[in-house]
């Protein structure tokens, strides 16, 4: 491949993988089962598009099943959300180039909730941090964070450098987290991830979570993982009863421990906003919603009407939205006044511009990950449970935590 026998695109890709592998001390590459690529116009711009174009022009073609993370646009709602023509056209150009490389436009960050998942021990190269930590900690698959260009490279070569979470020794717990809080709502699971991530903040740290009494659902684990990744840049955790394989290595933990209690979660829910403050937009996203989450949202909104001064947005995958439509959930949410977008995640949709266009300043969400992200787009953000988010959307004002 380095000699160019598989074409110049594969050679370019492999060179980049070797350079990164050298940085991290990898002495070989491992074959991967799949690649998952984060690539949208909002984050790539012309520079990223031109990089993809060079790979296409060099004859690039995927060697393993490869999928894309959410895009920046739901074309059905782009005009209603007044997304710029530059963003829409840019997104179209990126989609075209990805398709030419052979990358499937599934446009989801939660493919593990809708598509076949890799078996424990399988090497993959995934490029959404929430998907990565879910793959490592819940599925037992093996992947590092793969950035957009790196995941494209892995797709083109069918392999990835063997360092980090591809290696047994890097997957063992390094910090014991004594959890005394008992999270229930997804927002609380996200807050737990945030509280831990804020204390650890190191990609190479692997927390062992102890003390959680309930068996969490896929959605709760999704929010936990997304927050650990967002706040701590963590890519792996161990939760007894969830994480495949032995956690016997925990016995050898060298005294590194942290405590996380209810007060730590409350600090994540704390906000500059006061009870009764007006709410502009309520967003359910980051990660995309599963069918179960949409069903719960629909149940909460059934027969009610969203406040005329509030916009309620939810994002999901196209597959899930279709299922929600077939089961009537979508109609219930839309009748209440909510919008369910597919193939995108709200924070990829140029949220700063959207905020300025619609005058949105106060955002309420049940996503602790979005709480972290939206501040870069100059929103005042408040985290609330799913039920409290719905109430904020109905009443137009923030409730007491």
């Amino acid at each position, binding site marked *: 491949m380095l000699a160019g026998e598989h074409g110049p695109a594969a050679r370019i890709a492999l060179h980049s993988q070797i350079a990164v592998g050298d940085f991290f001390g990898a002495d070989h590459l491992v074959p991967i089962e799949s690649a998952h690529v984060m690539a949208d116009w909002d984050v790539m711009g012309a520079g990223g598009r031109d990089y993809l174009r060079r790979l296409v022009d060099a004859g690039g073609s995927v060697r393993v099943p490869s999928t894309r993370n959410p895009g920046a646009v739901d074309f059905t709602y782009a005009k209603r959300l007044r997304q710029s023509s530059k963003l829409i056209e840019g997104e179209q150009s990126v989609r075209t180039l990805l398709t030419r490389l052979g990358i499937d436009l599934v446009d989801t960050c939660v493919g593990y909730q809708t598509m076949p998942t890799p078996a424990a021990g399988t090497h993959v190269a995934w490029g959404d941090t929430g998907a990565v930590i879910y793959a490592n900690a819940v599925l037992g698959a093996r992947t590092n964070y793969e950035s957009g260009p790196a995941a494209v490279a892995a797709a083109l070569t069918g392999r990835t450098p063997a360092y980090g979470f591809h290696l047994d020794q890097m997957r063992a717990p390094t910090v014991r987290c004594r959890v005394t809080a008992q999270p229930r709502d997804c927002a609380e699971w996200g807050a737990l991830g945030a509280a831990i991530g804020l204390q650890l903040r190191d990609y190479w740290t692997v927390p062992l979570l102890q003390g959680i009494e309930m068996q969490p659902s896929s959605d709760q684990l999704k929010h936990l993982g997304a927050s650990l990744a967002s706040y701590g840049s963590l890519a792996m955790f161990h939760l007894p009863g969830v994480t495949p394989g032995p956690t016997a290595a925990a016995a050898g933990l060298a005294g590194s421990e942290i405590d996380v209690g209810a007060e730590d979660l409350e600090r994540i829910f704390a906000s500059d906003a006061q009870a009764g403050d007006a709410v502009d937009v309520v967003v359910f996203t980051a990660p995309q919603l599963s069918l179960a989450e949409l069903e719960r949202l629909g149940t909460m909104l059934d027969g009610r009407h969203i406040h005329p001064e509030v916009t309620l947005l939810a994002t999901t995958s196209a597959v899930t939205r279709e299922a929600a439509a077939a089961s009537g959930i979508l109609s219930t949410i839309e009748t209440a006044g909510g919008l369910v977008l597919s193939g995108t995640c709200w924070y990829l949709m140029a949220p700063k511009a959207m905020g300025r266009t619609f005058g949105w300043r106060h955002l309420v969400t049940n996503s602790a990950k979005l709480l972290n992200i939206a501040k*870069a787009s100059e929103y005042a953000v408040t985290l609330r449970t799913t039920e409290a988010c719905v109430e904020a959307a109905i009443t137009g004002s923030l409730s007491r935590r």
Partner: protein
Amino acid sequence: MSTTSTTTYQLAQALGEPVEAPALISTRPFSARYDLDRDTGVISRLGHPLRGRSVAGMILICPGVQGGVAAGWTFMKLAAHDLGFAGLVFDRVNPVMVQGAQAASLAIAAGIDPRVFAAVANDTVIRLDPPHRRLVVLG
């Protein structure tokens, strides 16, 4: 890492070509998505100590990283508009920063002595020398 003089810092890991540029010191873990306006190259996160500062032509020195995969494309996007970093130096780093820097032909290093944060002020000119795994403070 140990220092060989008061103005030279050794680096544990490094990639890219040597570069000289002013330093931009952040005591907060860096995220391309959470901290930056990626259209302007300006630190935009509410409450960030460097809010309002442009990263264009600067070598970021930062203890660590947070969040995710956006950096992989962001460095290219910024570079296409001459708004990008000149280099990146971390104590602890994740793969995304390295992958993104490599793809954007940006010098990057990790494993710097944390004392650098107290010793080097913003806008001090430094030389990041990945082949020799060192950072030299030029003043």
